[in-house]
């Protein structure tokens, strides 16, 4: 089977703009979690987030004309996607290619994002203040009150289309709005298309900007948000913290990457997904969906549990998700569970972009032979059994990591990556 290499990465998140920068911060015990700065959260009982510093994320876009056509989340996706393409050297490769059109047609774009966004609808608020809830007035004054391009500025697949326009890439694509598990699904789509020979290279992108009042209000109402810190698997954990940003991976067949002398960050071995069918927000206590997603990923990768040297847990710090995740890991790995770590204490939860970012960090950990500790872990929750988590860094032996991802709708996904590209 065709082996798939990661030959470029792009990152924008609260901890930094490159994988190395984020990795150094994480290893230094630094977290991006801070009181919200981009809007006034005074009086909010849960007011932490992992924000990207720029108040206007579209200012990160080099193409000034594109700024007005995109919203915050899209800008993160486009910035990360372009960075991955640049790192992989694909623009130069295209310009040197015998047929640039064939190159573009055989380059795929797979994007994941959370979709629906509250902020987008706020463009109607001034009109509503004027129309006072009267529909006829809302309809008749519409054209004077809301930007004509509103719908196209807010399309969930905007990052996908703008990345296409900015790179010229025109191959197969998808835009997955499968909440947090979409990031792994996007990488899985890329791997499947590359293995099948449908495309020669693919960018997998994920982007989110969920730190907005009504989103935070909803998460807080559900009891999903932490007050002071994200403490994965800790007895005192009280929830998660939302993060924002964009992450992208440039993927191509390992042989092709080797042939053109590209530097490789690692290899994607396989992925798997499963659903729990238990409503919008609930998870099953036994971690059934995760167990089957891990099983599918191992089988897709041709790996056994003993091949896994490091597990990067979803570890979002909520009571139910962490406990069921521990149950799933116990069922798959039994007493021989490799070191487990989690990164959301430092990154926050970037929803669809979380697992792709954590994948890049897992590769850093494997390269360095060290599993970073969970800096906020004080006392492991007995309900999480003897899960091998630690506050301190631990040495790693092996080259393969398992990354876990869980989203609303009981959607679970798992991804296996390896450093050794020999």
């Amino acid at each position, binding site marked *: 089977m065709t082996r798939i290499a990661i030959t470029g990465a792009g990152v924008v998140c609260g901890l930094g703009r490159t994988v190395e920068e984020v990795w150094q911060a994480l290893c230094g015990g630094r977290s991006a979690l801070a009181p919200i700065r981009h809007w006034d959260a005074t009086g909010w009982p849960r007011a932490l987030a992992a924000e990207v510093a720029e108040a206007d994320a579209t200012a990160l876009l080099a193409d000034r004309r594109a700024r007005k056509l995109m919203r915050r989340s899209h800008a993160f996706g486009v910035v990360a996607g372009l960075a991955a393409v640049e790192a992989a050297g694909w623009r130069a490769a295209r310009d040197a290619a015998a047929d640039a059109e064939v190159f573009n047609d055989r380059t795929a774009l797979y994007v994941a994002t959370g979709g629906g*966004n509250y902020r987008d609808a706020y463009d109607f608020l001034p009109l509503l203040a004027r129309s006072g809830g009267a*529909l006829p007035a809302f309809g008749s004054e519409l054209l004077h009150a809301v930007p004509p391009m509103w719908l196209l500025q807010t399309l969930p697949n905007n990052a996908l289309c703008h990345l296409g326009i900015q790179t010229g890439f025109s191959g197969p694509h998808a835009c997955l709005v499968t909440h947090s598990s979409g990031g792994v699904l996007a990488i899985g789509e890329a791997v499947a298309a590359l293995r099948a020979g449908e495309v020669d290279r693919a960018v997998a992108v994920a982007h989110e900007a969920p730190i907005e009042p*009504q989103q935070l209000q909803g998460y807080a109402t559900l009891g999903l948000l932490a007050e002071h810190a994200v403490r994965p698997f800790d007895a005192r954990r009280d929830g998660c913290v939302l993060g924002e940003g964009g992450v992208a991976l440039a993927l191509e067949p390992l042989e092709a990457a080797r042939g053109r002398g590209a530097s490789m960050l690692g290899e994607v071995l396989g992925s798997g997904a499963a*659903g729990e069918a238990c409503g*919008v927000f609930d998870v099953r206590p036994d971690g059934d969906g995760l167990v089957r997603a891990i099983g599918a990923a191992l089988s897709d990768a041709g790996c056994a549990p003993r091949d896994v040297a490091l597990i990067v847990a979803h570890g979002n710090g909520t009571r139910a998700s962490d406990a069921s995740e521990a149950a799933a890991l116990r069922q798959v790995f039994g007493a021989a569970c490799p070191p487990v770590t989690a990164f959301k204490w430092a990154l926050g939860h970037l929803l669809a972009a979380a697992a792709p970012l954590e994948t890049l960090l897992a590769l850093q950990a494997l390269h360095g032979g060290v599993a970073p500790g969970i800096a906020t872990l004080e006392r492991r929750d007995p309900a999480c059994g003897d899960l091998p988590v630690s506050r301190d860094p631990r040495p790693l032996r092996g080259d393969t990591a398992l990354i876990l991802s869980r989203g609303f709708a009981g959607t679970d996904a798992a991804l296996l990556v390896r450093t050794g590209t020999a």
Partner: protein
Amino acid sequence: MAEPIWITGLGLVTPLGVGVAPTWQALLAGASGIRPIGRFDASGFAVRIGAEVPLGDATDAVAPRLRKFAGRQHGFATHAAAEALRDAGVAPTDTTAPRWGCALGCGQVTLDYDELVATAAAAAPQGELQPARLAAPCDPIAFARQQSIAPLALLATQFGLRGPLRAVHTACASGGQAIGSGLKMLRRGEVDFVLAGGTDAMLTPIGLAGFCLLGALSADNDDPARASRPFDRTRNGFVLGEGAGMMVLERADTARARGAPPYAELAGEGNALSSYRITDPHPDGRGPIQAMRRALADAGESPAAVDYINAHGTSTPMNDRSECAAIHALFGAAVDRLLVSSTKGQIGHLIAAAGAVEAAFCALALRDAVAPPNANLHHPDPACALPFVGAAPQRRALRVALSNSFGFGGANSSLVLRAAGAVA
């Protein structure tokens, strides 16, 4: 040779009816699903017509325990999914559930008008949001409903689908892409059954506002039944519709083993980005050309083998011209043996559901050997010269059908369906 993937169940909720049979009958009879908007007061809008689904409360098919989480588009999806599963005569059981996947194209979920009015009253009396006013808890049920993944969550929960689940959104191409995604899940062996399709309910004040702002809609308010006229030289925009289309997909060997007859084979999928402009289709049809070419190659067919195209045909001046250019570029002389129609003349544009509903029409066309009509095409645009079906359906043995769906921003999807039992 890989096992063919069959469509063994269909479910439709469209402006022409609730269910496959009433919709298909009305479509072939040339009926129009486009009327003055009745579900809300559209009197102030420049456009006051739409293609509404004739269901007051769309959520009646949702299981009682889940109903409070269901909005209109979730309700459509549930109706169509229940019909498709019933029609296929198979449903997930405790043992088979992990081998059932779902691929759903769903609409852009945002606050609906009433919720936005409530938000404005509570937190933005002067038109600017004051976050401090939102610091108290909200209604968790409403928050669930507002998640873009909610339709997928409700389908999976109600019908017990526990394999890989995916929701996709590429605007008007969503439904086609979801079905293509389901095809790939089956071919890769990830699942034995897929419930795939699309659902949307943008015929709301906010949805209508979005398209009115773009100037994309026909404002022929006085002649609703004639307002959507794809490929006609007098066309002046599309008509916004709503609805859902779902299908059950499975391998031919599985279907044969349980004695389930197919509507058609889902033979290929292809998609491509135009990578041109966010607002406009490429005038030469770039993007659609590659999508159709990929779908045909995926199905092992040449353009000369295609009998029927269900065009994206939105009835906007630019889309229809660009699509015709694409068809001419790809089919060349083989254009002459085609039959082309756009069913949007009768059902309007169902946005994220359009590709799924129209793929279902292709399956029915192959089964019944009939190409649906172009009900409103009276003065073909010389710039859109194609062998169009007339105002009446055309009966002819059909082996291969192509369903096109092209989204805003340049995301294009094509599906190829083949008469069941026909050889590639």
